[in-house]
């Protein structure tokens, strides 16, 4: 293994409707992650913040004066790039210890991802880069974008409601094994099928739930990582490929080309093939993205995602357990960060009833206008 960076600490807050600011939640997660790594704030020389209101206030409040500071915009598509950046700063010697800190208070602020606000995440009055072409038609939400993709996928490939329902119901069963998950009540396929539509063909149970929460990770170089209390979780490889041109409309290929590129990049760079992947943490802001990601990464052919997930392959005990925490659909929507934490916990062997036995390689992937993937491994 030639990984240069490893996760040595993770910290999470409660998730849900918390009535606290993003920076307060981010700070709590940061302190928890430092505690998990048994490191002090003064040892942090790299700071990457995501969705916090003020990286300046966060650093000042927590005694961090890094030699490298990056603040990323709030879209969840930035989570993979954040890890790629942090690993790069450690690999090239810029930093010795990087704190990656995320805070989200969108539930408390009343974000709807469909009305008000601005930018592609808030969606404002019109979705995308040219709202004046979207707003007159009531195209307001990222969920509608996913619904347009699903409708197209159904037209081309015959993907059925029952097939897609396997995503939400499987992740709900996983969430029932995760005490931190927000949605843990029983959900059968029949429950899924009678759930009301939000933007058809998507049902409410195809949507993640907006909530507050904070997540932080501490990464250091692999040699230092081996001195920390927990087994290090090396970042084996990270890659991204944008599909930003034309991104106001759904991509013809459901992002398959970009997904194949990042999937190949991380398996090639790590020396571990796709068959070595023991679990996949897939960005499930909306459940169709799981199908698109599996197809793009090559777990099945184009258009075969529905059939592939329908018979237990993505469940614990299946061929490729996905989102063992319950994912964003059932654990909570932390814009990929809770999925990253789950990858780390799987590789530490800390997942209890939902542990993937002997997990050695766990992949994170996000299908979005910035497609990304990160491969994590157990230390050799």
């Amino acid at each position: 293994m030639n990984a240069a960076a490893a996760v040595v600490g993770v910290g999470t807050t409660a998730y849900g409707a918390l009535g606290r600011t993003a920076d307060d939640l981010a700070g709590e997660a940061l302190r928890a992650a430092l505690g998990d790594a048994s490191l002090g704030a003064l040892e942090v020389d790299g700071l990457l913040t995501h969705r916090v209101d003020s990286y300046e206030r966060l650093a000042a409040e927590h005694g961090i004066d890094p030699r490298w500071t990056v603040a990323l915009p709030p879209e969840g598509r930035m989570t993979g790039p954040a890890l790629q950046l942090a690993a790069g700063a450690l690999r090239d010697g810029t930093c010795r210890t990087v704190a990656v800190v995320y805070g989200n208070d969108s539930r408390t602020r009343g974000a709807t991802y469909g009305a008000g606000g601005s930018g592609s995440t808030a969606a404002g009055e019109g979705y995308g880069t040219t709202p004046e072409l979207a707003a007159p038609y009531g195209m307001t939400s990222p969920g509608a974008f996913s619904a347009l993709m699903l409708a197209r996928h159904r037209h081309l490939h015959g993907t059925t409601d029952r097939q897609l329902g396997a995503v939400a119901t499987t992740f709900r069963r996983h969430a029932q094994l995760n005490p931190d998950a927000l949605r843990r009540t029983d959900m059968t396929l029949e429950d899924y099928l009678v759930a009301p539509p939000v933007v058809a063909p998507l049902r409410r149970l195809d949507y993640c739930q907006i909530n507050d929460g904070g997540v932080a990770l501490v990464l250091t170089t692999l040699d230092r990582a081996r001195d920390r209390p927990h087994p290090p979780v090396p970042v084996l490889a990270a890659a991204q490929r944008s599909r930003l041109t034309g991104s106001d409309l759904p991509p013809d290929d459901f992002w398959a080309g970009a997904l194949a590129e990042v999937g190949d990049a991380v398996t090639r760079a790590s020396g571990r093939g796709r068959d070595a992947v023991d679990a996949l943490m897939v960005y499930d802001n909306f459940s169709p993205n799981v199908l698109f990601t599996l197809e793009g990464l090559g777990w099945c052919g184009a258009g075969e995602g529905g059939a592939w997930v329908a018979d237990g392959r993505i469940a614990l005990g299946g061929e490729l357990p996905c989102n063992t925490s319950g994912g964003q659909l059932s654990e909570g929507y932390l814009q990929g960060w809770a999925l990253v934490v789950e990858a780390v916990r799987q590789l530490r062997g800390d997942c209890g009833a939902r542990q993937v036995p002997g997990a050695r390689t766990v992949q994170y992937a996000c299908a979005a206008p910035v497609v990304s993937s990160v491969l994590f491994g157990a230390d050799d």
Partner: protein
Amino acid sequence: MDVREHLDGLRRGELRVALCRHCAAPSFPPPRTCPRCGGPDPALWITASGRGHLWSVAEFHRTYLPEHPAPYPVAVVELDEGPRLLSTLTDPRTPIGGAVIAEIDADAEPPRVVFRPESEGGAP
């Protein structure tokens, strides 16, 4: 991106979209650089025939904004000339892949283009 030509066209009852003047690829909304050929300021505005097919459609069942009460369909239409655009449908049951034709509501504010199934009545 600068879509004033499109919106001004709708106010005149014309469906104005753009192709790349360098490589002829669809170029709508018009970027400052064509992502296909790299050519600068590619927008060559044309008046589309209004004929196309439904690429995809989703139906809002939640009202996000008071001016758009649910339910209503949001469509992606691919014009015969190549460009795709967001729009809505006179008939939400229009099948994906089905031929559609534009009707322009020039008096709406903002002006809109709506698509109806080609098989329905009305002037072509």
